[in-house]
């Protein structure tokens, strides 16, 4: 069965203790995927307010849909430059 791949960066990877995770999901919202993610990595929960997300490399909001095969990225506040 196809999976959703979740990539974690910076402080989010630290808090989760991993840079990558896989979930069996299809036709869920980003918010729903977040619930699955924090169930597995509870230390992520307090970061919610600071995080942004991307679906397949483009910024996405919590109500947007995630399908099997998608790549979701968990993005702490960017600090390039």
């Amino acid at each position, binding site marked *: 069965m196809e999976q959703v791949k979740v990539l974690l*960066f910076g*402080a989010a990877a630290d808090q989760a203790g991993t840079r990558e995770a896989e979930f069996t999901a299809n036709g869920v919202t980003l918010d729903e995927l977040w619930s699955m993610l924090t169930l597995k990595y509870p230390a992520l929960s307090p970061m919610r307010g600071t995080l942004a997300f991307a679906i397949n*490399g483009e910024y996405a909001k919590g109500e947007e849909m995630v399908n099997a095969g998608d790549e979701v990225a968990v*993005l702490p*506040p*960017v600090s*390039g*430059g």
Partner: protein
Amino acid sequence: MTDGSFRIVDGPIDVGALVTGAFRPDCGAVATFVGTTRVDEGEGTSVEYLEYEAYRPMADRKLEEIGEEIRGRWDVGHVSIVHKLGRVDPGEPSVVIVVASPRRGPAFEASRYAIERIKEIVPIWKREIWSDGYVWVGSQVGTRSTPAE
């Protein structure tokens, strides 16, 4: 026609080549911004270096998007942005932005715009490496015993 390039690199940035590479006979002004690692001397302890990571290829695309935004807003002949990943020591460059324009106003405005947008939309993160641990800038998460310092 606008030339230039948008790159994320692991090795050092050749700043001089980037600046002189923007010189064009149809442009009279070249504005450059270089971000370097700054160290504030604290009480006996200070940042040893910065370490950058990126979400690629999204970060590459976002740099190109910034270039497109600039070309849409200002009359520019050249826009280049190079961002380094990995370790950047104090006084070393992490990002270089070079904009050439026929006139100086647009060159200044566009180079300023580029660095502000990088800090807004490009998925790159830095952590400060201290002798006693690290802190992710902007998230205040890390391994230091006093990460909020």
